[in-house]
C-alpha cells in the first residue's frame, strides 16, 4: 500500500491505496462519488469524465497517483440539489438527457467548453462532446442544453 493525496472538489483527501488503483475507483468506491460513472472501463464511452485542473479526462484511464497535485472536480463539486449549477439547470430545462447515466461527464466537459469558448456553434459543441456516448441518443437535446447553459452563464456574468 502507498499513500495518496488528492484534492477533490476543493477538499484534500488522503488514502492508502494499491499502486495500480485507477482514479475512477478511488473517487467512486473510497469517496462515494457515484457521479463518476464507469461504463466501458476502457476509454471509449466518456461516462467517467472528470475535470483535472479544469480539463476533462477519463478517470478510468489513469492511475490515481497520476492525479496527485492537481485539482479534481466531479459532478458533486458543481451544484447541489437546492442550488444547481447553471449548466445543470440548463440540462434540466432543455431535457438534455434521458436515463442520465452519461450526464455527469457531459456536464463536466461542457463546463470546460464554456470556459474556453462560450460562443461555440452546435458543431463545435458536438466536436467537444465527441468523447461521450449517450446510449439513449439524446444528442440534439444535449446540444440545446449546452447552448442554453451558455446563455445562462453569459447572463449571470452580465449581472455581475
Amino acid at each position, binding site marked *: 500500500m502507498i499513500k495518496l493525496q488528492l484534492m477533490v472538489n476543493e477538499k484534500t483527501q488522503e488514502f492508502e491505496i494499491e499502486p495500480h488503483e485507477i482514479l475512477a475507483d478511488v473517487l467512486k468506491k473510497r469517496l462515494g462519488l457515484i457521479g463518476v460513472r464507469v461504463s466501458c472501463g476502457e476509454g471509449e464511452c466518456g461516462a467517467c469524465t472528470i475535470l483535472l485542473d479544469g480539463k476533462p479526462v*477519463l478517470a478510468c*484511464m489513469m*492511475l490515481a497517483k497520476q492525479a496527485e497535485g492537481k485539482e479534481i472536480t466531479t459532478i458533486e463539486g458543481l451544484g447541489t440539489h437546492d442550488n444547481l449549477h447553471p449548466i445543470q439547470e440548463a440540462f434540466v430545462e432543455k431535457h438534455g438527457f434521458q436515463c442520465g447515466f452519461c450526464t455527469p461527464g457531459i456536464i463536466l466537459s461542457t463546463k470546460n467548453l464554456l470556459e474556453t469558448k462560450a460562443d461555440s456553434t452546435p458543431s463545435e459543441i458536438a466536436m467537444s462532446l*465527441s468523447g461521450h456516448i449517450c446510449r439513449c441518443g439524446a444528442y440534439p437535446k444535449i446540444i440545446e442544453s449546452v447552448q442554453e447553459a451558455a446563455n445562462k452563464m453569459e447572463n449571470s456574468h452580465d449581472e455581475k
Partner: protein
Amino acid sequence: MKKNNFEYLRPLTIAEACDMKEKYAEKAKYWAGGTDLLLQWQQGVVNLDYCIDLTFIPELSYIRQDSENLSIGALTILSSIETSSEIDSSLSIISEGASELATPQIRNTATIGGNVCRAAPSADMAPPLLVLGTEVKLVNSSGERWLALDEFFLGLNKTAREENELLVEIRIPVPSSNAASCFLKVGRTVVDIAIVNMAASMTMDDNAILSDVRIAFGAVAPTPLRIKLAEEMLLGVNVSAIDSAMIDKVSDKVANEVKPITDVRGTMEYRREISRVLTKRAIERNTQALTKRVLS
C-alpha cells in the same frame, strides 16, 4: 484477468528516471499518459513490476518553436499540441494530427511521446511527423542519441528504442516557404482509430521543380511508413506539369505498395482503395497550394 501488482516510482528528473530504468531494466516500464499501457496491463498483455511514472517530470513537457525547429517534449499532452499558438502555420499538420487523435478527454491525457513509442500502425501523429523529417532524442543513463523517425519504427509495436532508453524530445525542422503539406484521415467516426491515415509534403525549388516529396501512411502496414517509390515519381517534376494522369499513376503506385490487413475497422481491399483516394486528394491539395505560391 488482472495481473500482478506493481510498484510505483516517481522520478522528478530525466536523470532520475534513467537511473530507475537502469536499475530495474525490463521489469520496469516507463509510464507516460498511460491511456494505452494501463489497458494493456489490465488485460494482461503487458507485465510490469515497476511503473516509472513520467508525469511529474516538468522538463519533459514543452513546445518550443524557433526559426529552425519545432521541439516538443515527449510528455507533452496532445491537446497542448492541438491548441498551441507556438506552432508555425507551416507545421499545422502536426496540430491537425493531434486534434484528430481519439477524444478530447484522451488528448488531455495521452502524450506525443507515448503515441510514437507505442508504434501502433494507426498512430495519428506518425504520418505528419514522418513527412516533416522528424528526429527523436533518446537518452539513457550513460548518454543520448538522435535518430530519424524514418529509422524508428521497426515492426508492429516495435521501435529502435533500446530497452534502457527514454524518448525525451521530438524535433521537427521548419519547412521552407516553398513547401506544402497536408494530413488526411479516414475513420468510422471522428473519434475512432484510423482505418487509413496519411500525410504528404511537397517542396519545390525556385523554378517550381519538386525537390523533396514525402508521402507517409498509417494503418496499411505493420508500421507507419513512407511510400518511397511513389515519392520518387514526383521528384524533379515541375509543379505546373502535375496533371490528373500523373496523380493517378502515383496513386496507383501507393495502392500497390501498401500492405494492409483486414480487421474490424476495414478490409484489405477497402484500405487499398482509400489509400489511392487519399493520395490523390493530398497531391491535388498540395499542388494547388504550391501553384498559388508560384503565381504570387
